[in-house]
Protein backbone atom coordinates (compact mmCIF):
# COMPACT_ATOMS: atom_id res chain seq x y z
CA UNK A 1 0.00 0.00 0.00
CA UNK A 2 2.80 2.42 0.89
CA UNK A 3 4.32 1.89 -2.55
CA UNK A 4 1.02 2.59 -4.23
CA UNK A 5 0.42 5.76 -2.22
CA UNK A 6 3.86 7.20 -2.93
CA UNK A 7 3.38 6.23 -6.58
CA UNK A 8 0.18 8.27 -6.66
CA UNK A 9 1.78 11.20 -4.86
CA UNK A 10 4.74 11.17 -7.23
CA UNK A 11 2.45 10.97 -10.20
CA UNK A 12 0.25 13.79 -8.92
CA UNK A 13 3.31 15.97 -8.44
CA UNK A 14 4.58 15.20 -11.88
CA UNK A 15 1.43 15.91 -13.78
CA UNK A 16 0.46 19.04 -11.86
CA UNK A 17 -2.58 21.23 -11.81
CA UNK A 18 -4.42 20.24 -14.99
CA UNK A 19 -4.66 16.61 -13.99
CA UNK A 20 -5.77 17.57 -10.49
CA UNK A 21 -8.54 19.54 -12.07
CA UNK A 22 -9.56 16.29 -13.70
CA UNK A 23 -9.42 14.60 -10.32
CA UNK A 24 -11.82 17.15 -8.80
CA UNK A 25 -14.24 16.52 -11.64
CA UNK A 26 -13.97 12.82 -10.85
CA UNK A 27 -14.84 13.23 -7.17
CA UNK A 28 -18.48 12.47 -7.89
CA UNK A 29 -17.22 9.02 -8.88
CA UNK A 30 -17.26 8.18 -5.17
CA UNK A 31 -20.99 7.70 -5.28
CA UNK A 32 -20.62 5.16 -8.10
CA UNK A 33 -21.62 1.58 -7.32
CA UNK A 34 -18.90 -0.90 -6.37
CA UNK A 35 -17.38 -2.84 -9.24
CA UNK A 36 -19.16 -6.13 -9.91
CA UNK A 37 -17.44 -9.14 -11.45
CA UNK A 38 -19.55 -12.09 -12.54
CA UNK A 39 -17.78 -15.44 -12.79
CA UNK A 40 -19.39 -18.14 -14.92
CA UNK A 41 -18.28 -21.67 -14.01
CA UNK A 42 -16.99 -22.90 -10.65
CA UNK A 43 -14.30 -25.32 -11.78
CA UNK A 44 -10.56 -24.98 -11.23
CA UNK A 45 -10.50 -21.67 -13.13
CA UNK A 46 -13.70 -19.97 -12.04
CA UNK A 47 -13.63 -20.87 -8.35
CA UNK A 48 -10.01 -19.72 -8.06
CA UNK A 49 -10.86 -16.46 -9.83
CA UNK A 50 -13.79 -15.79 -7.49
CA UNK A 51 -11.69 -16.32 -4.37
CA UNK A 52 -8.62 -14.43 -5.55
CA UNK A 53 -10.70 -11.47 -6.78
CA UNK A 54 -12.14 -11.11 -3.28
CA UNK A 55 -8.79 -11.75 -1.61
CA UNK A 56 -6.66 -9.46 -3.75
CA UNK A 57 -9.21 -6.63 -3.88
CA UNK A 58 -9.48 -6.88 -0.09
CA UNK A 59 -13.20 -7.23 -0.48
CA UNK A 60 -13.67 -4.05 -2.49
CA UNK A 61 -14.91 -5.85 -5.60
CA UNK A 62 -18.27 -7.63 -5.55
CA UNK A 63 -18.09 -11.13 -7.01
CA UNK A 64 -20.98 -13.36 -8.11
CA UNK A 65 -20.26 -16.96 -9.08
CA UNK A 66 -22.76 -18.76 -11.31
CA UNK A 67 -22.28 -22.53 -11.18
CA UNK A 68 -24.81 -25.17 -12.14
CA UNK A 69 -23.66 -27.86 -9.70
CA UNK A 70 -24.28 -27.68 -5.96
CA UNK A 71 -20.78 -28.96 -5.13
CA UNK A 72 -17.43 -29.05 -6.89
CA UNK A 73 -16.44 -32.54 -8.10
CA UNK A 74 -12.81 -32.89 -9.18
CA UNK A 75 -11.83 -34.54 -12.44
CA UNK A 76 -8.26 -35.05 -11.16
CA UNK A 77 -8.30 -38.09 -8.81
CA UNK A 78 -11.64 -39.24 -10.33
CA UNK A 79 -9.88 -42.17 -12.02
CA UNK A 80 -9.24 -43.53 -8.51
CA UNK A 81 -13.02 -43.48 -7.94
CA UNK A 82 -13.40 -45.42 -11.17
CA UNK A 83 -10.93 -48.03 -9.89
CA UNK A 84 -12.76 -48.27 -6.55
CA UNK A 85 -9.92 -46.75 -4.53
CA UNK A 86 -11.78 -43.56 -3.57
CA UNK A 87 -15.40 -42.49 -3.10
CA UNK A 88 -17.06 -39.64 -4.97
CA UNK A 89 -17.31 -37.83 -1.61
CA UNK A 90 -13.49 -37.84 -1.40
CA UNK A 91 -13.25 -35.73 -4.58
CA UNK A 92 -16.19 -33.41 -3.84
CA UNK A 93 -15.88 -30.03 -2.13
CA UNK A 94 -18.66 -27.65 -1.09
CA UNK A 95 -18.85 -24.14 -2.51
CA UNK A 96 -19.93 -22.84 0.91
CA UNK A 97 -16.46 -21.59 1.84
CA UNK A 98 -16.41 -19.16 -1.06
CA UNK A 99 -19.51 -17.55 0.40
CA UNK A 100 -18.85 -17.74 4.15
CA UNK A 101 -15.14 -17.04 4.14
CA UNK A 102 -14.66 -14.90 1.05
CA UNK A 103 -18.00 -13.18 0.57
CA UNK A 104 -18.60 -14.50 -2.93
CA UNK A 105 -22.29 -14.42 -3.88
CA UNK A 106 -23.19 -17.92 -5.11
CA UNK A 107 -25.90 -18.62 -7.65
CA UNK A 108 -26.60 -22.28 -8.36
CA UNK A 109 -27.90 -21.98 -11.88
CA UNK A 110 -27.05 -22.30 -15.54
CA UNK A 111 -25.68 -19.24 -17.35
CA UNK A 112 -27.53 -19.26 -20.66
CA UNK A 113 -26.40 -16.20 -22.62
CA UNK A 114 -23.93 -13.36 -22.57
CA UNK A 115 -24.45 -9.95 -24.11
CA UNK A 116 -20.95 -8.51 -24.47
CA UNK A 117 -22.24 -5.08 -25.53
CA UNK A 118 -24.77 -4.66 -22.73
CA UNK A 119 -22.43 -6.45 -20.27
CA UNK A 120 -25.07 -8.84 -19.03
CA UNK A 121 -25.33 -12.57 -18.33
CA UNK A 122 -28.64 -14.37 -18.65
CA UNK A 123 -29.45 -17.29 -16.35
CA UNK A 124 -32.09 -20.01 -16.44
CA UNK A 125 -33.75 -19.15 -13.13
CA UNK A 126 -32.18 -15.98 -11.76
CA UNK A 127 -32.84 -13.47 -14.50
CA UNK A 128 -30.24 -11.20 -16.03
CA UNK A 129 -27.12 -10.05 -14.17
CA UNK A 130 -25.13 -6.92 -15.01
CA UNK A 131 -21.34 -6.99 -14.76
CA UNK A 132 -18.44 -4.57 -15.00
CA UNK A 133 -16.16 -7.46 -15.89
CA UNK A 134 -16.97 -11.06 -16.71
CA UNK A 135 -14.86 -14.12 -16.01
CA UNK A 136 -15.83 -17.04 -18.19
CA UNK A 137 -14.53 -20.42 -17.13
CA UNK A 138 -16.86 -22.72 -19.03
CA UNK A 139 -14.66 -25.79 -19.36
CA UNK A 140 -15.35 -28.02 -22.35
CA UNK A 141 -18.40 -29.36 -24.10
CA UNK A 142 -18.45 -32.27 -26.51
CA UNK A 143 -18.78 -31.40 -30.20
CA UNK A 144 -22.30 -32.45 -31.20
CA UNK A 145 -22.45 -35.29 -33.72
CA UNK A 146 -18.66 -35.59 -34.00
CA UNK A 147 -19.06 -39.34 -33.45
CA UNK A 148 -22.22 -40.65 -35.11
CA UNK A 149 -24.25 -42.87 -32.82
CA UNK A 150 -22.99 -41.27 -29.61
CA UNK A 151 -25.50 -38.45 -29.23
CA UNK A 152 -27.97 -39.12 -26.43
CA UNK A 153 -26.31 -42.45 -25.57
CA UNK A 154 -23.95 -41.48 -22.75
CA UNK A 155 -25.80 -43.88 -20.43
CA UNK A 156 -24.74 -46.81 -22.61
CA UNK A 157 -21.40 -45.40 -23.68
CA UNK A 158 -20.19 -43.18 -20.85
CA UNK A 159 -17.53 -40.53 -21.27
CA UNK A 160 -16.80 -39.98 -17.56
CA UNK A 161 -14.80 -36.95 -18.69
CA UNK A 162 -16.75 -34.66 -16.38
CA UNK A 163 -16.59 -36.05 -12.87
CA UNK A 164 -19.81 -36.91 -11.04
CA UNK A 165 -22.67 -39.22 -12.07
CA UNK A 166 -20.75 -40.26 -15.21
CA UNK A 167 -17.83 -41.42 -13.06
CA UNK A 168 -20.16 -43.59 -10.97
CA UNK A 169 -21.88 -44.94 -14.07
CA UNK A 170 -18.63 -46.08 -15.65
CA UNK A 171 -17.54 -47.52 -12.29
CA UNK A 172 -20.76 -49.54 -12.17
CA UNK A 173 -20.24 -50.86 -15.71
CA UNK A 174 -16.69 -51.87 -14.86
CA UNK A 175 -17.91 -53.69 -11.76
CA UNK A 176 -20.65 -55.43 -13.71
CA UNK A 177 -18.26 -56.60 -16.43
CA UNK A 178 -17.53 -60.34 -16.34
CA UNK A 179 -13.98 -61.65 -16.02
CA UNK A 180 -12.61 -61.99 -19.54
CA UNK A 181 -14.42 -58.87 -20.75
CA UNK A 182 -13.05 -56.02 -22.84
CA UNK A 183 -12.96 -52.46 -21.50
CA UNK A 184 -12.39 -50.27 -24.56
CA UNK A 185 -11.32 -46.65 -24.07
CA UNK A 186 -11.28 -44.19 -26.93
CA UNK A 187 -9.03 -41.08 -26.84
CA UNK A 188 -9.85 -38.20 -29.22
CA UNK A 189 -7.27 -36.25 -31.21
CA UNK A 190 -5.40 -33.64 -29.18
CA UNK A 191 -6.09 -31.05 -27.89
CA UNK A 192 -8.50 -32.41 -25.29
CA UNK A 193 -8.99 -31.85 -21.54
CA UNK A 194 -6.25 -33.44 -19.39
CA UNK A 195 -3.66 -34.95 -21.77
CA UNK A 196 -2.40 -37.71 -19.40
CA UNK A 197 -5.89 -38.53 -18.04
CA UNK A 198 -6.86 -41.28 -20.49
CA UNK A 199 -3.57 -43.14 -20.01
CA UNK A 200 -3.95 -42.88 -16.25
CA UNK A 201 -7.47 -44.26 -16.64
CA UNK A 202 -6.18 -47.24 -18.64
CA UNK A 203 -3.66 -47.97 -15.84
CA UNK A 204 -6.09 -47.61 -12.94
CA UNK A 205 -8.74 -49.75 -14.66
CA UNK A 206 -6.05 -52.35 -15.40
CA UNK A 207 -4.95 -52.35 -11.76
CA UNK A 208 -8.55 -53.09 -10.73
CA UNK A 209 -8.93 -55.81 -13.37
CA UNK A 210 -5.60 -57.42 -12.53
CA UNK A 211 -6.81 -57.94 -8.99
CA UNK A 212 -10.48 -58.80 -9.61
CA UNK A 213 -10.90 -60.00 -13.23
CA UNK A 214 -7.44 -60.96 -14.47
CA UNK A 215 -8.58 -62.54 -17.76
CA UNK A 216 -10.01 -59.20 -18.94
CA UNK A 217 -8.47 -56.65 -21.25
CA UNK A 218 -8.13 -52.87 -21.49
CA UNK A 219 -8.11 -51.84 -25.12
CA UNK A 220 -6.83 -48.29 -25.64
CA UNK A 221 -7.98 -46.89 -28.98
CA UNK A 222 -6.01 -43.69 -29.43
CA UNK A 223 -6.91 -41.36 -32.31
CA UNK A 224 -3.42 -39.90 -31.89
CA UNK A 225 -0.27 -41.48 -33.28
CA UNK A 226 1.33 -41.88 -29.86
CA UNK A 227 0.83 -41.41 -26.12
CA UNK A 228 0.22 -37.68 -25.60
CA UNK A 229 1.81 -37.12 -22.18
CA UNK A 230 4.55 -38.76 -20.06
CA UNK A 231 4.98 -41.18 -22.95
CA UNK A 232 7.95 -43.16 -21.68
CA UNK A 233 6.48 -43.50 -18.19
CA UNK A 234 3.05 -44.62 -19.39
CA UNK A 235 4.56 -47.00 -21.97
CA UNK A 236 6.53 -48.59 -19.11
CA UNK A 237 3.41 -48.77 -16.92
CA UNK A 238 1.43 -50.41 -19.74
CA UNK A 239 4.22 -52.98 -20.13
CA UNK A 240 4.02 -53.71 -16.41
CA UNK A 241 0.45 -54.91 -16.88
CA UNK A 242 1.67 -57.66 -19.23
CA UNK A 243 -0.96 -58.37 -21.87
CA UNK A 244 -3.72 -56.74 -19.88
CA UNK A 245 -3.41 -53.36 -21.66
CA UNK A 246 -3.44 -53.30 -25.43
CA UNK A 247 -2.47 -49.87 -26.80
CA UNK A 248 -3.49 -49.17 -30.41
CA UNK A 249 -2.44 -45.76 -31.85
CA UNK A 250 -4.03 -44.11 -34.93
CA UNK A 251 -7.42 -45.53 -34.03
CA UNK A 252 -9.82 -42.73 -34.80
CA UNK A 253 -13.41 -43.58 -34.04
CA UNK A 254 -15.78 -43.40 -37.06
CA UNK A 255 -19.01 -44.18 -35.25
CA UNK A 256 -20.44 -46.21 -32.42
CA UNK A 257 -23.38 -48.54 -32.08
CA UNK A 258 -24.42 -47.82 -28.53
CA UNK A 259 -26.86 -50.72 -28.18
CA UNK A 260 -24.16 -53.31 -28.88
CA UNK A 261 -21.25 -51.22 -27.55
CA UNK A 262 -19.49 -51.48 -30.88
CA UNK A 263 -16.77 -49.07 -31.98
CA UNK A 264 -16.35 -48.58 -35.69
CA UNK A 265 -12.76 -47.70 -36.71
CA UNK A 266 -11.35 -47.18 -40.18
CA UNK A 267 -10.15 -50.76 -40.61
CA UNK A 268 -11.70 -52.49 -37.66
CA UNK A 269 -14.88 -52.99 -35.70
CA UNK A 270 -14.63 -53.67 -31.99
CA UNK A 271 -17.37 -55.02 -29.78
CA UNK A 272 -16.60 -54.11 -26.19
CA UNK A 273 -18.19 -55.08 -22.89
CA UNK A 274 -17.62 -51.60 -21.53
CA UNK A 275 -17.19 -48.83 -24.09
CA UNK A 276 -15.78 -45.58 -22.74
CA UNK A 277 -15.60 -42.91 -25.42
CA UNK A 278 -13.97 -39.58 -24.66
CA UNK A 279 -15.58 -37.49 -27.41
CA UNK A 280 -13.90 -34.67 -29.36
CA UNK A 281 -14.44 -31.44 -27.47
CA UNK A 282 -14.37 -27.67 -27.68
CA UNK A 283 -14.83 -24.65 -25.41
CA UNK A 284 -18.00 -24.75 -23.31
CA UNK A 285 -21.08 -23.77 -25.33
CA UNK A 286 -21.67 -20.48 -23.53
CA UNK A 287 -18.30 -19.35 -24.94
CA UNK A 288 -18.79 -20.68 -28.47
CA UNK A 289 -22.17 -19.00 -28.96
CA UNK A 290 -21.40 -15.57 -27.48
CA UNK A 291 -19.44 -14.01 -30.33
CA UNK A 292 -16.01 -14.53 -28.79
CA UNK A 293 -13.01 -15.07 -31.12
CA UNK A 294 -12.50 -18.79 -31.70
CA UNK A 295 -9.61 -20.72 -33.22
CA UNK A 296 -10.81 -23.55 -35.51
CA UNK A 297 -14.30 -22.82 -34.23
CA UNK A 298 -13.33 -24.58 -31.01
CA UNK A 299 -11.12 -22.65 -28.61
CA UNK A 300 -11.19 -19.06 -27.38
CA UNK A 301 -8.28 -16.84 -28.37
CA UNK A 302 -7.10 -14.66 -25.45
CA UNK A 303 -4.76 -11.80 -24.66
CA UNK A 304 -2.38 -13.50 -22.24
CA UNK A 305 -1.68 -10.35 -20.19
CA UNK A 306 -5.27 -9.96 -19.02
CA UNK A 307 -6.86 -13.25 -20.17
CA UNK A 308 -9.47 -11.17 -22.04
CA UNK A 309 -10.85 -12.70 -25.22
CA UNK A 310 -8.92 -10.94 -28.00
CA UNK A 311 -10.70 -7.77 -28.99
CA UNK A 312 -13.41 -8.18 -26.35
CA UNK A 313 -12.62 -5.86 -23.44
CA UNK A 314 -14.04 -6.94 -20.11
CA UNK A 315 -14.55 -10.65 -20.88
CA UNK A 316 -11.80 -12.76 -19.31
CA UNK A 317 -11.70 -16.43 -20.34
CA UNK A 318 -9.88 -19.20 -18.46
CA UNK A 319 -8.91 -22.83 -18.49
CA UNK A 320 -9.72 -25.68 -20.84
CA UNK A 321 -11.78 -23.39 -23.10
CA UNK A 322 -8.68 -21.58 -24.40
CA UNK A 323 -6.66 -21.96 -27.52
CA UNK A 324 -3.55 -23.08 -25.63
CA UNK A 325 -0.21 -21.27 -25.66
CA UNK A 326 2.78 -23.41 -26.78
CA UNK A 327 3.22 -26.54 -24.64
CA UNK A 328 0.44 -25.45 -22.29
CA UNK A 329 -1.95 -28.30 -21.45
CA UNK A 330 -5.65 -28.17 -20.68
CA UNK A 331 -5.39 -28.95 -16.97
CA UNK A 332 -7.01 -27.95 -13.70
CA UNK A 333 -3.64 -26.74 -12.46
CA UNK A 334 -3.15 -24.36 -15.39
CA UNK A 335 -6.76 -23.12 -15.13
CA UNK A 336 -6.04 -22.16 -11.50
CA UNK A 337 -2.99 -20.24 -12.73
CA UNK A 338 -4.94 -18.51 -15.52
CA UNK A 339 -7.41 -17.43 -12.84
CA UNK A 340 -4.70 -15.73 -10.79
CA UNK A 341 -3.39 -13.83 -13.84
CA UNK A 342 -6.96 -12.72 -14.59
CA UNK A 343 -7.74 -11.77 -10.97
CA UNK A 344 -4.56 -9.69 -10.69
CA UNK A 345 -5.29 -7.99 -14.02
CA UNK A 346 -8.93 -7.26 -13.12
CA UNK A 347 -8.03 -5.73 -9.75
CA UNK A 348 -5.44 -3.54 -11.51
CA UNK A 349 -7.75 -2.56 -14.36
CA UNK A 350 -10.61 -1.65 -12.02
CA UNK A 351 -8.16 0.63 -10.18
CA UNK A 352 -7.04 2.19 -13.46
CA UNK A 353 -3.66 0.50 -13.33
CA UNK A 354 -1.94 -1.43 -16.10
CA UNK A 355 -1.97 -5.23 -15.85
CA UNK A 356 1.21 -7.00 -14.75
CA UNK A 357 3.42 -6.91 -17.88
CA UNK A 358 5.28 -10.11 -16.93
CA UNK A 359 2.88 -12.85 -15.77
CA UNK A 360 4.21 -16.33 -15.04
CA UNK A 361 2.18 -19.53 -14.91
CA UNK A 362 3.25 -23.08 -14.20
CA UNK A 363 1.68 -26.50 -14.65
CA UNK A 364 1.89 -29.85 -12.96
CA UNK A 365 -0.12 -32.94 -13.84
CA UNK A 366 0.25 -35.83 -11.45
CA UNK A 367 -1.06 -39.22 -12.61
CA UNK A 368 -1.43 -42.63 -11.00
CA UNK A 369 -0.10 -45.73 -12.74
CA UNK A 370 -1.93 -47.96 -10.24
CA UNK A 371 -3.74 -47.34 -6.96
CA UNK A 372 -0.58 -46.14 -5.22
CA UNK A 373 2.27 -45.04 -7.46
CA UNK A 374 2.41 -41.62 -9.07
CA UNK A 375 4.25 -39.78 -11.84
CA UNK A 376 4.27 -36.12 -12.87
CA UNK A 377 4.91 -33.73 -15.72
CA UNK A 378 5.71 -30.08 -14.94
CA UNK A 379 6.41 -26.90 -16.89
CA UNK A 380 6.89 -23.18 -16.21
CA UNK A 381 5.67 -20.57 -18.71
CA UNK A 382 7.00 -16.99 -18.74
CA UNK A 383 5.27 -14.27 -20.76
CA UNK A 384 7.25 -13.42 -23.90
CA UNK A 385 6.50 -9.81 -24.87
CA UNK A 386 7.71 -10.27 -28.47
CA UNK A 387 5.56 -13.37 -29.04
CA UNK A 388 2.71 -11.94 -26.93
CA UNK A 389 2.15 -15.27 -25.23
CA UNK A 390 3.61 -17.35 -22.43
CA UNK A 391 6.45 -19.62 -23.54
CA UNK A 392 7.74 -22.71 -21.72
CA UNK A 393 11.09 -22.04 -20.05
CA UNK A 394 13.90 -24.07 -21.63
CA UNK A 395 15.66 -26.33 -19.15
CA UNK A 396 12.80 -26.14 -16.65
CA UNK A 397 10.03 -28.65 -16.05
CA UNK A 398 10.13 -32.30 -17.05
CA UNK A 399 8.79 -35.63 -15.91
CA UNK A 400 9.45 -38.08 -13.07
CA UNK A 401 12.40 -40.42 -13.39
CA UNK A 402 10.13 -43.33 -12.44
CA UNK A 403 6.78 -44.02 -10.81
CA UNK A 404 6.93 -43.91 -7.01
CA UNK A 405 4.78 -44.14 -3.91
CA UNK A 406 6.04 -40.78 -2.69
CA UNK A 407 4.74 -39.12 -5.86
CA UNK A 408 1.44 -40.92 -5.36
CA UNK A 409 1.27 -39.22 -1.97
CA UNK A 410 2.28 -35.86 -3.46
CA UNK A 411 -0.49 -36.27 -6.05
CA UNK A 412 -3.09 -36.55 -3.28
CA UNK A 413 -1.50 -33.66 -1.36
CA UNK A 414 -1.56 -31.56 -4.55
CA UNK A 415 -5.28 -32.26 -4.87
CA UNK A 416 -6.06 -31.26 -1.27
CA UNK A 417 -4.04 -28.08 -1.59
CA UNK A 418 -5.39 -26.96 -4.94
CA UNK A 419 -8.99 -27.66 -3.86
CA UNK A 420 -8.35 -25.48 -0.80
CA UNK A 421 -6.62 -22.83 -2.92
CA UNK A 422 -9.82 -22.60 -4.98
CA UNK A 423 -12.55 -23.08 -2.44
CA UNK A 424 -11.39 -22.69 1.17
Amino acid at each position, binding site marked *: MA*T*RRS*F*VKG*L*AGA*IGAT*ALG*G*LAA*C*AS*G*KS*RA*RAHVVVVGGGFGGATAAK*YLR*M*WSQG*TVDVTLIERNAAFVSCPISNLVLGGYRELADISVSYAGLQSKWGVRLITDEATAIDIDKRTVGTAMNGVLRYDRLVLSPGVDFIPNAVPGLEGNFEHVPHAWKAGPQTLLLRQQLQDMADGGVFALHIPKAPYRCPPGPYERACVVASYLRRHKPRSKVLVLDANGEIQSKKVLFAKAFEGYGGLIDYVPNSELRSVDAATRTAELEFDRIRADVLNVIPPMRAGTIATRSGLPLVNGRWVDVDWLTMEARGVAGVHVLGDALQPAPAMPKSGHIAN*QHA*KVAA*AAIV*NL*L*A*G*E*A*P*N*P*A*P*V*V*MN*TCYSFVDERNGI*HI*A*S*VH*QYDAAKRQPMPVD*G*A*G*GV*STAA*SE*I*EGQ*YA*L*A*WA*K*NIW*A*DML*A
Partner: protein
Amino acid sequence: MKLAHAFALTCLLGAAGVAAAADPNLARNLAATCANCHGTDGRSVGGMDSLAGEPRDRLLQKLLAFKSGERPATIMHQIARGYSDEQLALIAGHLAAQRVRD
Protein backbone atom coordinates in the same frame (compact mmCIF):
# COMPACT_ATOMS: atom_id res chain seq x y z
CA MET B 1 -11.37 5.02 2.57
CA LYS B 2 -9.70 2.38 0.54
CA LEU B 3 -12.49 2.50 -1.99
CA ALA B 4 -12.38 6.28 -2.36
CA HIS B 5 -8.66 5.94 -2.81
CA ALA B 6 -9.13 3.39 -5.59
CA PHE B 7 -11.50 5.69 -7.42
CA ALA B 8 -9.17 8.65 -6.99
CA LEU B 9 -6.48 6.52 -8.57
CA THR B 10 -8.81 5.50 -11.40
CA CYS B 11 -9.51 9.10 -12.18
CA LEU B 12 -5.91 10.16 -11.86
CA LEU B 13 -4.66 7.48 -14.19
CA GLY B 14 -7.59 8.02 -16.48
CA ALA B 15 -6.34 11.56 -16.86
CA ALA B 16 -2.65 10.78 -16.96
CA GLY B 17 -2.71 7.58 -18.98
CA VAL B 18 -1.65 4.21 -17.60
CA ALA B 19 1.96 4.17 -16.43
CA ALA B 20 4.10 1.27 -17.67
CA ALA B 21 6.01 0.51 -14.47
CA ALA B 22 6.70 -2.89 -12.88
CA ASP B 23 3.62 -4.17 -11.09
CA PRO B 24 3.88 -3.48 -7.33
CA ASN B 25 2.22 -6.86 -6.77
CA LEU B 26 4.78 -8.81 -8.76
CA ALA B 27 6.05 -10.76 -5.73
CA ARG B 28 2.51 -11.63 -4.65
CA ASN B 29 1.61 -12.79 -8.16
CA LEU B 30 4.74 -14.92 -8.52
CA ALA B 31 4.26 -16.54 -5.11
CA ALA B 32 0.67 -17.39 -6.07
CA THR B 33 2.06 -19.79 -8.68
CA CYS B 34 3.28 -21.98 -5.78
CA ALA B 35 -0.08 -22.07 -3.94
CA ASN B 36 -1.50 -25.00 -5.91
CA CYS B 37 0.79 -27.29 -3.92
CA HIS B 38 2.00 -25.30 -0.91
CA GLY B 39 -1.36 -23.65 -0.12
CA THR B 40 -2.77 -20.14 -0.46
CA ASP B 41 -0.05 -17.69 0.69
CA GLY B 42 2.15 -20.70 1.44
CA ARG B 43 -0.12 -22.15 4.14
CA SER B 44 -0.38 -25.84 3.23
CA VAL B 45 -3.46 -27.83 4.24
CA GLY B 46 -1.34 -30.99 4.48
CA GLY B 47 1.00 -33.31 2.63
CA MET B 48 3.23 -30.49 1.33
CA ASP B 49 5.50 -28.18 3.31
CA SER B 50 4.09 -24.86 4.46
CA LEU B 51 6.27 -21.97 3.34
CA ALA B 52 4.50 -19.04 5.03
CA GLY B 53 6.59 -17.20 7.58
CA GLU B 54 9.81 -19.05 6.83
CA PRO B 55 12.75 -16.60 6.83
CA ARG B 56 13.44 -15.19 3.38
CA ASP B 57 17.10 -16.11 3.19
CA ARG B 58 16.52 -19.69 4.22
CA LEU B 59 13.74 -20.09 1.64
CA LEU B 60 15.86 -18.54 -1.08
CA GLN B 61 18.80 -20.76 -0.20
CA LYS B 62 16.60 -23.85 -0.53
CA LEU B 63 15.18 -22.66 -3.84
CA LEU B 64 18.63 -21.97 -5.28
CA ALA B 65 19.80 -25.39 -4.09
CA PHE B 66 16.86 -27.00 -5.90
CA LYS B 67 17.69 -24.94 -8.98
CA SER B 68 21.35 -25.99 -9.06
CA GLY B 69 20.46 -29.63 -8.41
CA GLU B 70 22.43 -29.64 -5.18
CA ARG B 71 19.31 -30.49 -3.22
CA PRO B 72 17.61 -33.73 -4.36
CA ALA B 73 13.92 -33.48 -5.23
CA THR B 74 11.13 -35.21 -7.09
CA ILE B 75 9.88 -32.00 -8.72
CA MET B 76 11.23 -28.80 -7.13
CA HIS B 77 14.41 -28.76 -9.23
CA GLN B 78 12.26 -28.70 -12.38
CA ILE B 79 10.05 -25.93 -10.99
CA ALA B 80 12.83 -23.73 -9.58
CA ARG B 81 14.60 -23.72 -12.96
CA GLY B 82 11.60 -21.97 -14.49
CA TYR B 83 12.18 -18.79 -12.48
CA SER B 84 15.04 -16.28 -12.53
CA ASP B 85 17.05 -15.85 -9.31
CA GLU B 86 15.43 -12.41 -8.95
CA GLN B 87 11.97 -13.93 -9.22
CA LEU B 88 12.84 -16.58 -6.63
CA ALA B 89 14.07 -13.82 -4.30
CA LEU B 90 10.78 -11.93 -4.72
CA ILE B 91 8.82 -15.13 -4.00
CA ALA B 92 10.91 -15.91 -0.92
CA GLY B 93 10.43 -12.38 0.39
CA HIS B 94 6.68 -12.51 -0.11
CA LEU B 95 6.25 -15.92 1.52
CA ALA B 96 8.43 -14.92 4.48
CA ALA B 97 6.05 -12.02 5.16
CA GLN B 98 2.92 -14.22 5.31
CA ARG B 99 1.14 -15.22 8.52
CA VAL B 100 1.94 -18.79 9.56
CA ARG B 101 -1.72 -19.39 10.47
CA ASP B 102 -4.84 -18.42 8.65
